[in-house]
C-alpha cells in the first residue's frame, strides 16, 4: 500500500491538479495561478513517487528496529486533510484571502492532530494506553473546536436564511424549525427503541437541509427591504417639515430619559410658544447658549395637534460649491403631553451668521431667539 508520507504527497498532487482545472474553468485558462498549481501537482507526485519507491516517510517501515514490536498505527485521515489545507492555501494565495486563512487553519489543525496522533502511537506499546494519552492531549482541544464550530455553523446558516426571507415568514420558519426540533426530541424520548440509524439519518438530513439552504440564502443575499434600507440609510437624515415624514417620524419616541442637563424647556400651550431656563423662574423670550457647548433643550407639547421644534442655526458655506446652506435641526413629531429633546452645539456666535431661532412649523410668527455670545 501507499505509505503515509506518499499518501500526503499524492494527495497534494491530486488536489493541486483538481484546483488547477477548477481555476482554469472559473478564472482564466492561462494564469500564473494555474501554472503554480500544476507545478506543485507535478512536483508533489514526483516526490510521492520517490517516497513510495524507497519506502521512506513510512512510520511502520520494517527497517525501523525500534518500533518493530509496536502496534501498527491506525489508519489516519490527517495526511489527506493536511493536503487539502495546503491546496486551499495555494488557491487562496491567488484568489481570496478567506480561502487562504481557511487553508492555514486546516493545516494547523491537521498538523497538530497528526503530530499528536503519531506521537501518541509511539508513547508505548500499549494501544489502550496510547489512546488514553491521545485523548488527554487532544480532547481539550478537539471538543471546544467541534462544539464551537457547530454552534457557529448553525447560527450563521440559520441567520442567513432568516435574512433572505421576509420578516413574517422568518418568524414562521423559526417556529417551524423549533417545533420540529422539539417534536423529534419528544418522539425519540418516548420511543427509545427507534433505530439509531433512523435518528442519525434525521440528524444528518436536518444538518444538510440547514447547510444547503443557508448556503443558498447566503449566496442570494439579503431580502430586498434590507438592501434598500442599507442603501438609503433612512434614519440618518432629519426631515424638519411641518408634515410627518415617513421614516424619521415613524413610531416617534416620546419619552425622554434626560432628566438632568436641560438648559431650557420650550412649551407649546394653546398655540403659544414659551421658554423657561433652568434656575430661573420667569419665562424668557431669548435663550443664551454658550458657543460650542452641548446644550439640551426640551420640547414639550401641551396641545392636541402634533408639532415639532425646529432650530434654525444660520447658514454655512459648502466648501466645494460655495453655496450657502441653512443649518437646521429638529425633533420628531411630538404628540399631546409628550416631550422630546434637542441637543444643539452651535459653533459660531449669533453675530456672525444669525439670528438663530427656535420655531415650531404650524405656529407661524412665533419664535424664541437663541443668543450665542
Amino acid at each position, binding site marked *: 500500500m501507499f505509505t503515509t508520507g506518499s499518501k500526503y504527497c499524492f494527495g497534494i498532487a491530486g488536489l493541486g491538479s483538481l484546483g488547477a482545472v477548477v481555476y482554469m474553468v472559473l478564472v482564466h485558462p492561462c494564469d500564473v495561478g494555474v501554472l503554480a498549481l500544476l507545478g506543485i501537482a507535478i512536483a508533489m507526485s514526483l516526490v510521492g513517487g520517490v517516497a513510495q519507491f524507497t519506502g521512506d516517510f513510512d512510520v511502520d517501515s520494517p527497517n525501523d528496529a*525500534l518500533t518493530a514490536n509496536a502496534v501498527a498505527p491506525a489508519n489516519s485521515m490527517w495526511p489527506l486533510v493536511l493536503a487539502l489545507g495546503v491546496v486551499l492555501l495555494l488557491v487562496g494565495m491567488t484568489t481570496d484571502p478567506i480561502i487562504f486563512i481557511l487553508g492555514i487553519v486546516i493545516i494547523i489543525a491537521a498538523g497538530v492532530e497528526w503530530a499528536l496522533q503519531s506521537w501518541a502511537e509511539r508513547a508505548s*506499546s500499549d494501544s489502550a494506553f496510547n489512546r488514553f494519552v491521545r485523548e488527554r492531549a487532544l480532547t*481539550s*482541544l478537539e471538543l471546544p473546536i467541534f462544539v464551537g464550530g457547530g454552534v457557529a455553523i448553525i447560527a450563521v446558516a440559520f441567520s442567513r436564511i432568516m435574512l433572505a426571507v421576509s420578516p413574517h415568514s422568518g418568524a414562521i420558519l423559526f417556529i417551524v424549525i423549533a417545533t420540529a426540533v422539539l417534536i423529534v426530541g419528544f418522539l425519540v424520548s418516548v420511543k427509545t427503541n427507534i433505530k439509531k440509524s433512523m435518528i442519525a439519518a434525521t440528524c444528518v438530513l436536518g444538518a444538510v437541509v440547514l447547510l444547503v439552504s443557508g448556503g443558498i440564502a447566503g449566496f442570494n443575499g439579503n431580502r430586498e427591504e434590507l438592501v434598500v434600507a442599507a442603501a438609503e440609510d433612512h434614519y440618518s437624515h432629519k426631515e424638519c417639515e411641518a408634515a410627518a415624514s415617513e421614516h424619521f417620524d415613524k413610531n416617534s419616541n416620546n419619552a425622554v430619559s434626560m432628566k438632568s442637563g436641560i438648559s431650557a424647556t420650550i412649551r407649546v400651550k394653546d398655540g403659544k410658544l414659551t421658554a423657561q431656563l433652568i434656575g430661573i423662574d420667569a419665562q424668557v423670550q431669548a435663550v443664551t447658549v454658550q458657543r460650542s457647548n452641548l446644550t*439640551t433643550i426640551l420640547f414639550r407639547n401641551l396641545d392636541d395637534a402634533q408639532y415639532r421644534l425646529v432650530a434654525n442655526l444660520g447658514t454655512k458655506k459648502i466648501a466645494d460649491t460655495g453655496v450657502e446652506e441653512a443649518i437646521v435641526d429638529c425633533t420628531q413629531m411630538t404628540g399631546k403631553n409628550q416631550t422630546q429633546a434637542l441637543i444643539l452645539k452651535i459653533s459660531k456666535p449669533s453675530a456672525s451668521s444669525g439670528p438663530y431661532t427656535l420655531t415650531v412649523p404650524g405656529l407661524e410668527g412665533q419664535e424664541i431667539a437663541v443668543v450665542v455670545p
Partner: protein
Amino acid sequence: MAIIERPAPTAPILLRAPVTPSQSMGIVRRPVTSTGWKSWVFTVDHKKIGIMYGVFAMFFFIVGGVEALLIRLQLAAPDGKILSADLYNQMFTMHATTMIFLFAMPMAAAFANYFLPLQLGARDVAFPRLNALGLWLLVAGGLILNSSWFLGGAADGGWFMYSPNSGPVFSPSNGVDFWTLGVQIAGFGSLIGSINLIVTILNMRAPGMTLMKMPVFCWMILVVQFLLVFSLPVITVALVLLTFQRSFGATFFDVAQGADPLLWQHLFWIFGHPEVYVLILPAFGIISEVLPTFSRKPLFGYPFVVFSGASIGLVGFGVWSHHMFATGLGPISVAAFSIATMAIAIPTGVKIFNWTLTMWGGKIWYSTAMKFAIGLIVLFTIGGLSGVTHAVAPSDTQQTDTYYIVAHFHYVLFGGMVFGLFSGFYYWWPKVFGKMLNEKLGGWNFWLMVIGMNMTFGPMHILGLQGQPRRMYVWTEARAGEGFFNFGFWNRVASLGSLILAIGILLFLINVVHTTRKGKPAPLDPWDARTLEWITTSPPKEHNFDRIPVVHHLDDFFHRKYQEDATTGTMVQIATGEQLVRDEEANADAHIHLPSPSYWPIAIAIGVGTLGMGVVYGVPIMIVGVLIILGSSFGFVLEPSVADDIDYDPPMSGGQDTKELAPLG
C-alpha cells in the same frame, strides 16, 4: 522533544505495560512533583498560593511606595521639577491602583488563603484549582497594568478614571487601555477567589464550628468576599463600557451623543465604596485575633463585632454617592447619602469600643504585633472622625478633592489597613515560616512607621483645610498663604515624613532578610494563641492537620490549654500548645485526600492575559487568547481533581482515585 522520543522497550515482558510517564506522556503528564519551581507554579496548595500572593503583594507595595515617594518629592517645594505633569498624573494614578489592586487586595487574599483553612480546621479551600486560577489571573492583571510603563506610558486618569477624561481623546496613550484590562483581569481573579472562599467558609468548617464559633478573622473575610461578589460585576460593567468606548468606538461616554458622564461615576463608586471595606475589613479581622491573644482575653462582644462587620458591609453598598456630593445630584439624594454615611460610623464605632474594651481587664503583652494593632485603633479612629466631618455634605463640598480627603483615607487605609496587615505579619510569621521576626527591629519598625505616618498624613489635614486641591502636579507660592498654616512648611513636613515612613518599611524588609538568614526557629505556640491554626506544626504540613480538630468553643485552642478553676474562677493551664500538637500527630488520620497540582490554572491565566493584550494590539492576538482560554478551560474541566496513578513516576499502584499519605510524621 517528547514528540519524537521513542522509548526503547528493554524487554518483551514490558510490552503491554505503559512505560514511565515522564517519557511517554511528555507535557500532558500532570505536574505532580512537590519540590522545585514547578511545585510552586502549578501548585493548588492554599498555603503556597497564599505565600505567592504575599510575595506578589509585597513587591507591589514597594513599587507603589516608590511611586508615593516620587510624588512627595515633587510636592516638597513649590513648582516642583522632578516629574513632568504627564508623569505626575501617571504616578498618582498608578500609586493608587497599585496599592489598592496589587497590594492591599492581594495581601488580604494572602492572609485569607493561608489562614482561612487553618482557622476553620480544613485541609484546603473548596476549589483548590480555582484558587490557583485566581492568583494567576491577578498576576496577569498586575503585569498588564504595569507593562504600560514600558509601552508608551501608564494610565493618567486617576484610579477613579472619570469619564470623559479617560476617553480616547483626553487620554491618548494606551495607558488607560492597559489599566482597564489589568483591573478587569485582576477583578476576575478576585471574583473567582471570593466565590471559592465563601464556599470554603460555609461548607468546610471543622466539625463543631458553628458560624458563631468561627474566628472573627474568618467572619471579616466572609463579609469581604460577599462585598466582592456583589461589587466586582459592577466595575466589570463599567470597565467593559470604557474598553468598548476606547477600543471599539462605542458611545457610552460620548457627551456629544447625549451620554451622561455621571454613569461612570455611579458604576465606579457602587464598586468603589464597598471596595474601601474590602480593603479595611481583613485588617479588622487580623487585629480582632491579635488583640485577644495579647490581652489574654476573648474579644469583647464577639456577636457585636461580627454583626457590626456585616452591617458595615451591607450599609457600605448604600453610601457610594458620598463620593459625588459635588457633582450636582440634587439635595434629596445628597441628604439621603449624607445620613447613610453617618449611619455607617455607628458600627465602626462599635468595633473601636469593642477592641478597646477587649484590652480592659486584660494582661497586655506589648509584642510588635500588638503594638501595630493598637496603632490601628488609634490611627483608624482619627481617620474615622475626619470621615464624620465630611459625611456632613455641605462641609464636604469644602473638603472634597482637597488634601483633607487624602489625609482622611490615608489614616484609614495606611493607619488602618497597613497597620493591621503588619500586625498580621508579626503575629503569623512564625506560623508561616517557622521563624520569629526580630522583636527589637520590629519595635523600631513600628515607631518609625507611626512617626512617619503621622508626619506624612497629619499635615495633609492642614493643607486640605487651607485649600490645597489633590492631584496637582505643582502647587504655587501665589496660593500658599502666609503664617503658620502656609503650604510650604507643611508640604515639606509631609515629604520628610514620607522618608521616615519609607525607612520604617525598609526596616521591616531588613527584619525579614535577617530572620530568614539568622532567625531562631519559632516555638510551636509562641504567643500563647487562641485559634486552630496553632494546633499544627509551623510551618504547617501539606495537609494542614494530622487530624481534623473537633471544635467545642470559640477560641478552641485556648480552651484546650486552659480551664477555669471552678472554685477560684481563675484560668489554669492544663496543657501546653506543644503537647497539643504532639497529641494531634500521634493520632493522625491515615487516609488524606489532597488535590493534585495542575497546569491549567496558569494556562488559562496566560490565555486571559493574551486576550487582554489583543484588545490593545489587535484581533489576531485576541483570537489566540480565546483559543488558549477555550482549550485550557476544557483541560481544566476534564481533568480529575486528583492525578491518575500513571501520572506518578514510577506509576502509583492501587488504582484508587486518591493518593494516600500513609506514613505521616
